[in-house]
């Protein structure tokens, strides 16, 4: 029962994080939430008896993907300043 509760909690957090990644206005916040999503996904893999995938996901979701996204976000900020980053989401 405790394990099931944990699974439900994890599933709920994954869903909420995915929703926030997609709908948050601030780009940088979205990136950070996405990194958190990757880390929680790694926990989900271990819960599903897939330690191989959990190992890769921990390195990719938290490490490489985060570096790529944060670097791109930083590049945008370097070119435009915060102004366009906050305003880029007017269309959504």
């Amino acid at each position, binding site marked *: 029962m405790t394990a099931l509760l944990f699974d439900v909690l994890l599933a709920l957090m994954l869903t909420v994080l995915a929703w926030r990644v997609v709908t948050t206005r601030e780009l940088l916040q979205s990136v950070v939430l996405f990194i958190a999503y990757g880390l929680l996904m790694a926990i989900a893999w271990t819960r599903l008896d897939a*330690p*191989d995938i959990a*190992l*890769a996901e921990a*390195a*990719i979701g938290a*490490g*490489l993907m985060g*570096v*790529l996204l944060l*670097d*791109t976000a930083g*590049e945008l900020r*370097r*070119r435009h300043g915060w102004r366009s980053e906050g305003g880029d989401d007017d*269309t*959504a």
Partner: protein
Amino acid sequence: MTRHDATLRRRRRRALLRVRIVVAGAGALALALLLVAAVLELPEGPLGLAEEAAAQLAHTGVDHAVTAVLLNYRSYDTWLEVGVLLLAVMAIFALRGGAHLENVRPAPRRDPLLTWLTRLLIPMLTLTAGYLLWLGKFAPGGAFQAGVVLGAAGAMLRLSGTPSLDRIGDVAIRILLAVGFLAFLVAAVATRLAGLDMLELPPGRAGDIILMVETLATISIATTCAVLVMAMPGAESPPAIAAKDVRKEART
């Protein structure tokens, strides 16, 4: 007059956007319901190849089923996936206009804390990667995990401003990138020449062949991951950006 037009246009765009959100939301919700219904209707019982994979495990040369699938049962898939990684790097090089990494933008100022952390973590990450690679024979681990960890180490070197892959020259980089794909290619040709099916590993030597191919694939995957981070296009063409920024300023 023009200001009125602009307001009108903006209002119309907002309305269109709202329509788009509502339609997309309704569509996604409907799809979610359909998918949930489909999941609940899934046929019972074992659907996969778990038993088949376990039955032949003794002949694969490794004791871990996932590694066996990756490098023995379905090594053709893995070969092509290593090829996809190579293609992604080639595409990024094409965007940059070359495989040389010397002109990546100057790394950030060196930070004593970051330097200390790098000194501490890089050996540990390298050790972890080697351990994971060796572990793949009988436990969760293997080429992809090890390659990704090593690639993360490369990304960290880049972030801390330590010279690494960007100093070894483009020929060396190309070799490191291609070596995993070539290892699979050599294995495929060798098995054909030996009269076997393509990538059909003889049970006696499968373990050694897999370890060899896996090691080379790890090197390629690690280099790929590190180069993906290092070779992001952008800041190395400042004149064009400056000109465009001026244009943008003039427009607004």
